[in-house]
């Protein structure tokens, strides 16, 4: 059980660009400092929020409890064929 590499890399990469790369290429001006801070904080909070959600689901200790009608609907709508 555990993480798959691709989503972790993608999301981390995205927020890494926002929080680390972008602040270096901001235009010079009186508000540069504030903009850098805004980008870095946004990236940090949003990435951590995603990470918590991802890690919380990495090793599920319980499974979802579903009603049988819900299961049948899920099977129909999400293409999850049920074995006979």
């Amino acid at each position, binding site marked *: *059980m*555990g*993480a*798959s590499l*691709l*989503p972790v890399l*993608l*999301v981390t990469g995205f927020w890494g660009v926002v929080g680390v790369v972008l602040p270096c290429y901001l235009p010079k001006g*009186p*508000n540069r*400092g*504030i903009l850098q*801070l*805004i980008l870095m*904080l*946004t990236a940090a*909070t*949003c990435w*951590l*929020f*995603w990470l*918590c*959600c*991802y*890690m*919380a*689901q*990495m*090793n*599920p*200790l*319980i*499974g*979802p*409890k*579903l*009603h*049988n009608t*819900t*299961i*049948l609907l*899920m*099977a129909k709508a*999400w293409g*999850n064929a*049920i*074995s*006979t």
Partner: protein
Amino acid sequence: MGSLFRSEEMTLCQLFLQTEAAYACVSELGELGLVQFRDLNPDVNAFQRKFVNEVRRCDEMERKLRYLEKEIKKDGIPMLNTGENPEAPQPREMIDLEATFEKLENELREVNHNAEALKRNFLELTELKHILRKTQVFFDEVDQREMYQSAQMTDPSREEEHVTLLGEEGLRAGGQQSLKLGRKMETFCKHPLGTLQLPLHQEGGFHPTESMTRALITDDAIARQPGAGPVQLGFVAGVILRERIPSFERMLWRACRGNVFLRQTEIESALEDPSTGDKVLKSVFIIFFQGDQLKTRVKKICEGFRATLYPCPETPTDRREMAMGVMTRIEDLNTVLGQTQDHRHRVLVAAAKNVKNWFIKVRKIKAIYHTLNLFNLDVTQKCLIAECWVPLPEIESIQLALRRGTERSGSSVPPILNRMETFEAPPTYNRTNKFTVAFQALVDAYGVSSYREVNPTPYTIITFPFLFAVMFGDLGHGFLMFIFAAWMVWKEKPLAAKKTDNEIWNIFFGGRYIVLLMGCFSMYTGLIYNDAFSKSLNIFSSHWRVNYNVTTIQEVADLQLNPSTSDYIGSPYPFGIDPVWQLASNKIVYLNAFKMKISIIFGVLHMLFGVALSYSNHTYFKKPINIYCEFIPQIVFLTFLFFYMVLLMFLKWMIYGPTNPLPTSPACAPSILITFINMVLFKYNVLPLDGCETVFMFGGQAFLQKFLLLVAVICIPWMLLAKPIQIMKKQKKRHELLSNNHVIGENGGAEGVGHMVNANNISHSPPAKPEEEEEELGEMFIHQAIHTIEYVLGSVSHTASYLRLWALSLAHAQLSEVLWTMVLQTGLKSESSVGGVILWAVFAFWAVLTIGILVFMEGLSAFLHTLRLHWVEFQSKFYSGIGYSFTPFSFEIILATASGTGED
């Protein structure tokens, strides 16, 4: 540097201005708006200052302008607002302005006065016209009645004929009138005091109106000389307000004991009251009576009721002539009135073009003289001395403005700007722009930051919307909020130009950028929660699948998927919560565990961030002692206890898996909270769960926890005592040094024995000082104790306080789900074509509730909770907020507040 991280560096300056140049210089500074003047004559009252006269003249001008504005508004003439900003005029131009306003005001007042007089005249004439017209009817009636009476004796059926003879006009005015009167008389008859009952019974066979009238008018006459013909009656005619008629009538009746006869008829068109300009309804009346005594009485009553009496000739020809005369006079008056109105309109239109401009000019002059009143006059009377707070980086531009001012005034001596040393705390000036100003306002609402203290605003710009979004996380609701704010930002300029008094709108508009960011972050957290109007999006397809066969599904109503089998794909849903949880009946249990953990994680990080910011304060103000004695123990305490708990959470997510063997199987996963409580209580003899080997997550956990707790506990006395003891030591050392110097200076290098003796002496000689120091020390101990207790207890309660993130998020999600199932679902379930109509109505209801309750009310509640988290939990870690804000002398601000209050 114009950054928001710390307030601007300020300096106190002294300003010497040539008396002639002062006005122009202050005017330039007002345009610049970067200087805060201090009042140098606080003891002088407002009426004794140097430029009182000028201020008074400005007030007078402002009054005249307000009068002009009122008149312009009354006529509904649009005032031109070009948005231009004229410079403050030279003092000599003030006289011109005054003369202009004086002329305008006088002209207007004269025109108004004339118009009022004309209108009064007009009103009187109109009333007279009405009187003549209406009374004519009364008189006609009397004549007819005589005829009618004789006719009725012979043939009662001719009544109708008479009515037709009167013509339509007569029927309306006279006929109805008499009928009405008849009705009124009937009510009078029922009055127990009415003396009327007698004649009515006597002449019971007659038409009631008829008998009444006769009884009233000729009662006396008939009694005295029956059959002698009509008695000569006096009468007065006038006009009275319609609502006063009933009481007027009653009064007349009582005062004259029923011996007068009142006829009244309404004037159909409303007349204008010349003094107030309101439309009032009036009635014409005529009172018949007999004798002079009654006449004076009636006149007095009329006066009392403010009825206007008009002369009314007795003969019909005179009346006709008079009516003609009145008509021609009314026509003349009408033309004159029209001309007067035209003139007034022309004057006002001309004034309306300039009135806004004049307002700005006058307000600027007034502001300048108010500021000059704060200055001190130099002994030679040649120059004015001012003291002002100035942002250090702006000194150049201020000097430039001063030079411009000198040039404008033509003075040869340049103004002098001197920096001054002061021990006073300078004002706090945070340079904001339209984006940051709202966030700064949130922080300032708690307390204006102390001078040069770390400003929480830059961090608040992101943490505020983020923490809000953790509570408000819903893609749909976030989107609604986002588009509303985006519209406000998009239409910023036209909306800002439209000034309104609507406070709620102003609050929303002022905080449009906050709302915009809150909406954006709510959409993001909504995506992570996978929640849009309480429904999930299945973008990446669920990572849980159903492997039960058909028979199981048919037989068992509730099935739980097992994560240790192939029900779970093995890796989590890539972005956000798996959509399957939205459908699960144990969703709340699962989400609660997750949301509580993230609340604590973000809470602890937020607080740690706050403590870290205090480090920057300590280094900036060069207080290393605060770093060793406050910052380090604080951060150690928080890290070793609460951040350790956060680490345990991550550890638990990683170690315990569904397919793991025994020690790390799901059944053995310990509760983080219980672990933490046991750690603090030093309780290590806990039995492991069935089948599990231990309650610990990793080897050496017990030892580590004991160590962490021990260090954290040591931090408490460290925080409590280290700083006061250090300071005490330092003071003692300084004392010794001082006394040594003192001794050396006095005894010229005598040491050894003399030293000891003198040391004793010193402790006696200045008795006041050590006591004071002791007091200070005691105060410091108390202060430090309070600070420590606050911090230690605060860490616990504040950590718990962050659980509101979970609570509100849960409440929001549940409320939106309830709204969906209770409201919208009922509409979705109905199928036939009627169902469409039902759905339409139900959707409207759902949409209103969604916006009203979920977005507006819940948003407000989440906003307030976020505000609290920032003010209390975050800012208490580093922010003292005991400064006062910089209020520069700026025309922009003065004009904005003046026009704001002017429009109220």
